Structures are given as structure tokens and as C-alpha cells.
């Protein structure tokens, strides 16, 4: 059994109103998930520009997850619907370029779903860890 399991770097973009609060909820309930997950707070999932995702991969992230309010519950009424379309297309394009589609993910996590946040992050980490290091969208200049 390998002792040193690969520890991936994960960037999680969380919308301020639902998913960031969900992450706080996971904390309050002490529902652990790997420390490799680092959360960036954005007002709405629709603030996430595809450039941010590529940037994260460039700088060494192995997985990027975007979490927003459930469709229909967006604080800004429609933001996450746009997120859904944009990311559907972007992920499909990344896949089309042969870049592992499992490295990117969108999840809808409400403020009440601390347990879902923790579960999602655990699963996503495991998935990305299984893929290993991000090689296909790496920028060697950014590697140590």
C-alpha cells in the first residue's frame, strides 16, 4: 500500500450567499475535508471567469471546483444559471482538448448544506488525487 498518496491542490470558488456559508456550516459542524481545499470567496458563482480557472491550473492547481446556490435560489436571481451554461461549455471544451474533465466541477451547495460541502470536497479531492498531478494544463515556469 502506497504511503504517500498524492496531495492535490484544489481551488474552490464559493459564492458568498450559499456555498461560502455552506463551507462555514461545514466548519461549525466540524465536518472535515482535506486541507488541500482552499476557498476563494466570490459574490456569485457567475463571477467566476474561465480565465480564473485556467489561471489556477497554470499556477499549479490540480482541481478547480465552483460552488454556487442551487439553480433557482441565486441571491441575484439568475447568476448561477449563467454559471451553469458557461461552465458546461468550458468543461466540454477542456474535455475536447483532452484535458481531464474530472479536474473541474460545479456543485450547488446551499447555506444549509455544510454536510454536502464537506462530502463534495472529500469526493472531489479523492477524484483529483486519483488523477495525480495536473500535467496537461501546467505551466512549467510556475512549478517549483
Amino acid at each position: 500500500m502506497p504511503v504517500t498518496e498524492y496531495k492535490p491542490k484544489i481551488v474552490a470558488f464559493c459564492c458568498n450567499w450559499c456555498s461560502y456559508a455552506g463551507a462555514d456550516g461545514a466548519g461549525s459542524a466540524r465536518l472535515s475535508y482535506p486541507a488541500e481545499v482552499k476557498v476563494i470567496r466570490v459574490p456569485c458563482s457567475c463571477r467566476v471567469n474561465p480565465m480564473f480557472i485556467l489561471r489556477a491550473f497554470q499556477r499549479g492547481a490540480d482541481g478547480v471546483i465552483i460552488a454556487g446556490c442551487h439553480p433557482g435560489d441565486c441571491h441575484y436571481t439568475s447568476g448561477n444559471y449563467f454559471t451553469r451554461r458557461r461552465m458546461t461549455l468550458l468543461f466540454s471544451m477542456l474535455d475536447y482538448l483532452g484535458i481531464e474533465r474530472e479536474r473541474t466541477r460545479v456543485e450547488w451547495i446551499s447555506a444549509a448544506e455544510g454536510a454536502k460541502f464537506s462530502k463534495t470536497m472529500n469526493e472531489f479531492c479523492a477524484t483529483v488525487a486519483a488523477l495525480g498531478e495536473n500535467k496537461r494544463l501546467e505551466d512549467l515556469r510556475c512549478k517549483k
Partner: protein
Amino acid sequence: MQEMMEKRALELLADGTVNRVLGWSVGEFPYDMTPAVFRSAEDLKDRFVYNDFCGANLSKYLIKESKGEGKILVFLKPCDTYSFNQLIAEHRIKRENVYVIGIECYGKADVEKLKAMGLSGITGIQMKNGEYVVETVYGNKTVKASDATAERCLSCKSKKHVVFDELIGEDGDVVEDCNRFDMVEKLEAMTPDERFAFWRGELSRCIRCNACRNVCPACSCEQCVFDNPNSGVAQKAAVNSFEENMFHIIRAFHVAGRCTDCGECSRVCPQHIPLHLLNRKFIKDMNEFYGEYQAGADPDARPPLGTYTKGDREPNEGGNK
């Protein structure tokens, strides 16, 4: 065709409908037809050319030209009218300053294909009885039209002019079975590793000459994010594989829902990278996921990324094999 177009342009210049004409003239090489603005009848008679090498989409030049003094005449092939319409939808062209003559088109010749057949010293081209008569310094050569037709014209999506003030030649129809997504489907059917290898093979040739960006009617930003030092993502040269990917993914994303699939990006790429396959992937996905949408067909239509439905598919679902 050229005579008819020249005659009509001279009439419109003479009666004051327009004060200049946007068309083509000979560029660096005799087969290299370059967009040009003609400001007088003399200039037009002198330099105006139209033949089967005139592939360039003139609509993008109207962003600037339509803001000048007076009205300008432009010749648009069916596919160009989609770009024109899209730019109208984006408020980039002043429609009232443009006089559009739609010209019929049955596909343009690809000089690279002719060269690949061993032809050299090409000086001109003519369509005769469904065949190309290629004029070269070594005499005329007859070539089967389908052998020399540009790839993008072989999967032409529409011979219909979606906007025009008048027509020279016939107006055609939207081509229902143009098979333009065949190659995209082929790629989708590959394994991710095969796809990765394919695209690395293609994109690694990119020299970041920006020809694709400069010719693209959708890539008409005042300043491109990649040129803007304040954007935080400026990059002038595709230094490594990441930057090649980054530039082309973001470019495709920025034109998603706006790209009319005119194919200019691939036509001008000096490295022959099939860039249109990136745009077509988005077009195909949007058609499948959100319903058929052709950018430019209807300037009032809501683009797929400017709208949504409650039951849209989820990003994690995946589309390719």
C-alpha cells in the same frame, strides 16, 4: 461577375448613393486578394478585383469604415452577411452608413490546395463549366472545382444572404446537411489521450502571430485582454503549451455564441491550425444543449450565453466520450 459588380459600384458612386467601396484588390501575390477601400471611380477601375480567390470576409472592416463620412458600399458573400448581421446586433456597425450588395457564392478556391497539386506561379483563376481554370506563368491549368475548393466552403452552412440592400446573382438557401460538425464528432469519439495528442500537435505550432484574432469579425475588441497589461492575463507570445491552450480556449470562449462560423481564422492561419474546430465545438454544444442557434441569422435572437432555462444541463454531465 467582376464586371457586373464593378458596373454597379460605379453607378452607385456616380449617383452619390455611396462615396466609397469596400472590395478586394490584388495583394502581395496575384492569388492573394486583399480587402481594399476604393474612393473614386478611377481607383475602382484601376484596382478592383473579384475572383475565386476573394475569400476574405469584409464585414469586420465596416466597424471602422461605417463610422466614417458618408455611405460605403460593401460586397458580402452569404457567409459574410452572417458576420455583418452579428456586428449589427452588437452595435458595432452603423447600418445606415452601409450599402450592402449580396453576391452569390458557390465556394472559394484554396490556393494552398492548388499549390499542393504542384501548381506554381499562379496569376489568376476563373470558373468555367464547373471547373477552375488556373492561370499560371506557365500557362493555364484546369482543375476539378471540388479538388480546389476551400475546406470551409465544402461544408458551407448557408448560401442565403441574411441581410442585403440588393443582390447580384441568386440568393440561395440554408444548407441543412452541411456536415460541418463531422470533424468535431470525430474528435469527440476519440479518447481523451488521442484528443490531447491531436490538439497538442496542432496548437504547438501556434506562433501567436494573432492573424486569427485580427481577421475574426467577432474578435473586434477595442483592446484584447491578451494585449492589455492591466488585465492581469496579458501575454504577447505563446511561450509554452499552457499559453497556447490559454489563448485559444479563451479566444473561443469569448466568441462563443457570437462566432458565425465564417472560417476566417483557419483560412488565415499561417500554421494551418484548424482553429475553426474549437469554435465549432462550442457551436455544436450550444446547438445540442440549448437549441439550434446560428449567430448572425437573426440580430434580435437571444444568444445562448445571454439567456438560460431552468432545466439546463449540468456542467458535470459531460458531452464527449
